[in-house]
């Protein structure tokens, strides 16, 4: 196993949708505890890259190694690897037929990682952490967008993952709810979670990211510290993009 100290190791990743080349040649390493923020215009491939990491999209070419497991190898048990990678979606994707507690305990109980009671206790602890301990019995339809996303984060954390992936977690939220979700993410970052975040929240990137990656047209155009990429970009395309979003 090619474990070179990196939590995530991506080399020469390619992804095509039919004839459309979405990811052309992506190489990327993420260290343990690192917070990497992906920015770029829509269609640049940043969400696809994120979704390739846990193989919600199968790669067309190249290699992805997560914690020493080659997830691009068909023989790898992807379900096992996914248990260690939490994912938070733009549209929350809470299970609408289950209440908050059941949303959180479904997977760990079904996969026999915890007993029902352990899962319940853990879920209540996490809900407290995201400030929603009073919503344990609520159904997703009774929650606001910000509350839904915080439950979705808690649901992912319930699996005790090593890595968290965030796919535009605040893009579907009303502006006044963005802050509460970012606050939870900031706390996670402070606690040393390895995070890969696709976002348009430049402020969040500047404050929390260890590294910012600017993507366009299926390539990584520029990467570096938030200071380097966001405040002193070198590439004209990065400068152009930032001038539009800032």
């Amino acid at each position: 196993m090619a474990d070179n100290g990196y939590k995530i190791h991506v080399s020469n990743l390619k992804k095509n949708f039919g004839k459309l080349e979405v990811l052309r040649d992506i190489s990327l390493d993420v260290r343990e505890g690192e917070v990497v923020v992906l920015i770029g215009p829509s269609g640049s491939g940043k969400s696809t890259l994120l979704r390739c990491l846990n193989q919600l999209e199968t790669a067309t070419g190249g290699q992805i190694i997560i914690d020493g497991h080659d997830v691009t190898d068909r023989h790898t048990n992807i379900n096992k690897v996914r248990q260690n990678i939490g994912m938070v979606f733009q549209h929350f994707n809470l299970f609408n037929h289950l209440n908050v507690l059941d949303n959180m305990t479904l997977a760990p109980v079904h996969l026999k990682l915890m007993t029902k009671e352990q899962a319940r206790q853990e879920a209540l602890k996490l809900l407290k952490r995201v400030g929603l301990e009073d919503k344990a019995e609520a159904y997703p339809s009774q929650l606001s967008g910000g509350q839904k996303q915080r439950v979705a984060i808690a649901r992912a954390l319930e699996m005790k993952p090593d890595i968290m992936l965030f796919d535009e977690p605040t893009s579907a939220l009303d502006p006044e709810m963005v802050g509460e979700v970012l606050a939870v993410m900031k706390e996670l970052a402070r606690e040393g979670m390895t995070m890969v975040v696709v976002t348009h929240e430049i402020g969040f990137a500047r404050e929390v990211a260890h590294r910012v990656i600017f993507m366009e047209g299926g390539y990584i155009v520029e990467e570096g510290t938030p200071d380097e990429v966001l405040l002193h970009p070198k590439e004209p395309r990065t400068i152009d993009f930032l001038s539009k979003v800032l």
Partner: protein
Amino acid sequence: MISIIRIYGDMLMQALGRTLLLTVIGLLIAIVIGMIFGLMNVSHNRVLNLIGTVYVDAVRGVPLIVLTYFMYFGVAMGIQSLGFPNFRWESAMQAGTIALSMNCGAYMAEIIRAGIESVDRGQMEAARSLGLTYGAAMALVVVPQAVRTMIPSIINQFIITLKDTSILSVIGIAELTNVGKTITGNTLNPLGSWAIVGVMYLIVITILSKVAKMVERRVNRGR
């Protein structure tokens, strides 16, 4: 007409019972058939897709009366020529139930496919991202949500299947329509006989439609 009810009442009620029995058994088997082929049709495996599509298209493309004749006479002959010369259907009911279930199963497969496809793709993705297998995600997350949208269509199919049982009269099953024929022959009163048979169907189907409306309202209220 009163005299028909007096003389043939028991026979008519028995026939109605047989019609309902055929419908319920047919529907239950059809749900199993529909689940199998419906899941095949939503899977990402091309071979399974093909099998599912061929079944649904083939069965929907053949009138139930032809399927019934084919099953009762054709398949029986086929099995005999395959080395079981003594093969007979236990009863017309047996062949009829199979034909009805196959027909209803094809429609049920479409209902189940549409129900599953109505569930947002993100539900499956979220379940898979937590490490659940495709099967577990389907069973625990997608299907429970699909069932809600499927219930009104399933009740509607129930009504269609109930009416379709009348076609099985052609192979001699003594269900309501067949008994109507017998009574007409005996009484030489087609007006009275068929009016009674028609009203009997109408009453049962009206009750079912009302139940369907109630369930539908209930399902919609819960969202």
